[in-house]
């Protein structure tokens, strides 16, 4: 069925942010005074006017069918005057002016398969990328690992019993559409073999100077094949970032046997207490093992459990590690420290230990 309208409209930008907003939210815009956390998954914001808005937060799988979105619309009509919002971590939040609807809404959400939680010191939903569902450069799937990890951490989503917030993110290659580089725990898909250059394709589909310039380590060298400009790769200089593949499809990166996952820990974006920081390498490689990626799930659960047991209240993963030190992190988690943990890219020396401060 085609319902193409005749008049063409462009460059209108997004709908105004107040267009679909709950009337109580609009009324108290800029007037919120404080908030309370009555129970996991529920926040209550109180306005200077005395008005209260209750947010009931539930997890979504991010990959949503229109059927499930319509279900949310139905639940919003039933419980929250038709109003809801989504969060920056792929949760849905129903906005209620009547607290009597909290329990019935929760019941409906759990029954529909969308658990309520993710607030305060719970593990919130995992921010993630497309993976094999919809990406050409993915070294792994995203949704499958997220599902498997969160199945294992389910109780930590529905309860607020962590020392502090714990943010997990997953990106299926170094492009990091999910920008996982500042997460408490980052799961990052990695390629580990040099691009296989399809030299017959290169002159047809790629601009050779752009391709050469795309390599951060200068590993791509110009050459001539059959009188046409082409490229070759200096294997030793390649660190598998995949940028060449992004600019030239003839630089094939995907490799079923060698692609896999790495785990990074201790990053944060919030300025609370300590400054924002990057996640650091914990585990350089785990295999791609669909459909449930047991090695990845076990590794993440182990890190979460060790952190939960050892960190002090309010200490984020990175703050805990800063206090106890990296040697103890590796000891407590039982993760092997290897040559891959020592940086050898730009500014690498800044991460070498430059004192005699050693714990025994």
């Amino acid at each position, binding site marked *: 069925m085609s319902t*193409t309208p005749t008049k*063409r409209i*462009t*460059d*209108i*930008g*997004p709908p*105004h*942010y*107040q*267009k679909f907003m709950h009337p109580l939210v609009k009324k108290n*815009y800029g007037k*919120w005074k*404080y908030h309370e956390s009555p129970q996991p998954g529920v926040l209550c*914001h109180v306005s200077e006017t005395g008005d209260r808005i209750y947010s009931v937060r539930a997890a*979504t799988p*991010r*990959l949503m*069918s*229109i*059927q499930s979105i319509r279900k*949310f*619309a139905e639940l919003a*009509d039933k419980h929250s005057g*038709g109003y*809801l*919002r989504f*969060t*920056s971590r792929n949760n849905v939040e129903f*906005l209620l002016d009547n607290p009597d609807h909290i329990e019935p809404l929760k019941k409906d959400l759990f029954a529909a*398969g969308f658990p309520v939680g993710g607030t305060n010191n719970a593990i919130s939903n995992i*921010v993630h990328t497309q993976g094999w*569902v*919809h990406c*050409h450069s993915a070294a792994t*799937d995203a*949704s499958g690992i997220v*599902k*498997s990890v969160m*199945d294992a951490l389910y109780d930590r989503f529905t309860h607020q019993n962590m020392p502090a917030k714990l943010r997990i993110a997953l*990106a299926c290659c170094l492009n990091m559409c999910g920008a996982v*580089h*500042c997460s408490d725990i980052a799961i990052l898909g990695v390629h580990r073999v040099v691009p296989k250059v399809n030299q017959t394709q290169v002159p047809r589909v790629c601009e050779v100077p752009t391709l050469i310039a*795309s390599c*951060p380590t200068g590993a791509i060298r110009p050459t001539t094949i059959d009188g046409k400009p082409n490229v070759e790769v200096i294997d030793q200089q390649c660190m598998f*970032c*995949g940028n060449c593949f992004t*600019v030239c499809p003839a630089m094939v990166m995907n490799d079923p046997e060698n*692609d896999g996952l790495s785990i990074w820990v201790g990053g944060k*974006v*919030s300025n*609370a*207490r300590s400054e*924002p920081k990057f996640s650091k390498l914990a585990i350089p490689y785990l295999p*791609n093992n669909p*459909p*449930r990626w047991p090695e990845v799930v076990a590794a993440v659960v182990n890190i979460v459990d060790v952190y939960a047991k050892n960190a002090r209240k*309010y200490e984020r993963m990175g703050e805990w590690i800063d206090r106890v030190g990296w040697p103890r992190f590796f000891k407590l988690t039982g993760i092997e420290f290897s040559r891959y943990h020592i940086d050898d*890219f*730009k500014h690498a020396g800044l991460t070498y230990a430059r004192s005699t401060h050693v714990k025994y």
Partner: protein
Amino acid sequence: MANGSNGKPKTELLDELEKGPWPSFVKEIKQACETSDSSKDLLGQLELSYKQKIGHWKHGGIVGVLGYGGGIIGRYSDVPEQFPKVAHFHTMRINHPAGWFYNSEALRTICDIWERHGSGLTNMHGSTGDIILLGTTTPELEPTFQELTHAGFDLGGSGSAVRTPNACVGMARCEWACFDTLKMCYDTTQNYQDELHRPAFPYKFKFKFSGCPNDCVASIARADMSVIGTWKDDIQQDDAEVSKYAAAGVDIQKDVCDLCPSKCMAWDGKKLKIENSDCVHCMHCINVMPKALRPGKERGAVILLGSKAPIVQGALLSSVLIPFVPADELFDTLKELVTRIWDFWDENGTNRERVGELIQRVGLPAFLDAIGLDPVPEMVSAPRDNPYIFYQTKKEGGDE
């Protein structure tokens, strides 16, 4: 591909991911199969990926709608003979309402359009913030786009353009917003429609607006221009409420004072004293006691620049450009600054070089000269510790 019931492919591996308590994306794809044949082929192709441990999407291609250079990501299957319904399966990025506020009618409108024209699969939302409509064919792009704009929605950004700006929930539902993040996001998006829809930059440029230093949209890690709310005057303090938190079991000394990064707080068991001139505005004490402590009244934002993920030259966090801009001057300051930054980037940026990488390459001092900002100590964690200084020799006649 062997078919199971209802024309859905057999998916022994993916079926495993319907088990367990967490919401299942496999269930979502199967639901979408009720209204879309392309979702059936998506399911089949994904099962093949799970078997072979490799993706089956070809490198993108250039597709779009008339007059736009972005907003659509071309996607083609590399096994189209097996899965013809996903031979093309393009993504549409739809600019979301700031703060991701919807009513049920708006959601149904989007669903109805997407049922008519696409796979029925979405992301709510993509990493940058857009509504992602996942999977349609080239001929459906223009009709989908036209229906969307008639319903009040427009495409988001892709490629070397301004990407869909994003903001935290802000004043709509948070007491800590030090500027109106949703308004800033909306105004910025409207102001740069051309730059958003028609890629003309060396690479992408992202804006993210966080209302306070908790930075709920990861502005400092994920935006080229990070605008993060803060305040200049004293933390608003309600002593009676502080006492109530203490009585309710908050260990003010241990949980608040000892964790203050600038050690600007003292608790004598009765009264919390804050030396506000030493406060770095980290939010910890306010996070712990939201009823007792609030950001001050003189509000605005820090403008930082340059963060990005690793590709190409390594990941960066944004760094301070202007330590404080009053809330009511924020939009004008941003526009002025952005013009000067883009001019320099256009002139000097190489292909796929983000602004942060350009600054790394030319050095912050040269960048500041170029955009006409004076250096201030807030821009650095410490002055340089190496003596290799590019002294600028005085020219004849006085001026440097």
